[in-house]
């Protein structure tokens, strides 16, 4: 049984450039490759927000209202809805003085059960170490 682990690392701020959106859409779309795989093969993505990237996780994006585009908040919720692992760096959350209450931690409003996790960077490093492929955005 072969499982390929992918780590998508979001370190950029949202909207001005497409980096964080691309990380999210690639992570979400990685779930569709199953149809091309043999029995027993699979991919296991993890999305990690570090540095300025943690600011993508601030709740309450109104990008659809103002820009007419799907918000990064919706992408994060879609990832949680698909049970993707979402890790947010605790040190960077603390650096910006954010609380878990101000972050997108779940997708309950669209029926998701998986929750995002605020974890120390050491845990994110472990995810990077165990990944077969790293994608920094």
């Amino acid at each position, binding site marked *: 049984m072969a499982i390929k682990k992918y780590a998508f690392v979001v370190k950029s701020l949202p909207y*001005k450039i497409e980096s964080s959106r691309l990380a999210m859409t690639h992570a979400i779309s990685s779930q569709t490759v199953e149809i091309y795989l043999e029995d027993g093969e699979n991919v296991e993505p993890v999305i990690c927000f570090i540095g*300025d990237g943690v*600011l993508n996780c601030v*709740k*309450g994006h*109104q990008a659809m209202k103002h820009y007419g585009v799907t918000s990064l908040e919706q992408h994060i919720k879609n990832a949680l809805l698909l049970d993707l692992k979402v890790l947010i760096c605790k040190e960077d959350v603390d*650096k*910006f003085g954010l609380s878990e209450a101000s972050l997108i931690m779940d997708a309950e409003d669209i029926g998701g059960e998986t929750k995002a996790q605020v974890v120390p960077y050491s845990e994110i490093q472990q995810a990077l170490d165990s990944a077969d492929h790293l994608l920094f955005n």
Partner: protein
Amino acid sequence: MKLGVFMSDYRSGSDVIERLQAEKLGIILVGNGVYHAAAKENGGASSVLSKQATFYVLVEDLESRGFTAANIDSRVKVVNYGDVVDLIFNDYEKIIWI
């Protein structure tokens, strides 16, 4: 001169802001520049806000990123697109974008 400056980045442009001089200086925070008004990195406000200037932040860009007028530094005035047009035409002779 009366100079209006659009600042659309969070990690670049601060060095330029530091050196700019104008009789009247207005700094309009747009795009990712809104984090200068909203983020409290390491517990402190952005160093950009220590400049002698009038600061504005575009509410549409602020709200798109999950912040509201209630979250921002008290030195910054919240403006919308219409207000920015008025600033350009009525308050500043020259406009630059950094």
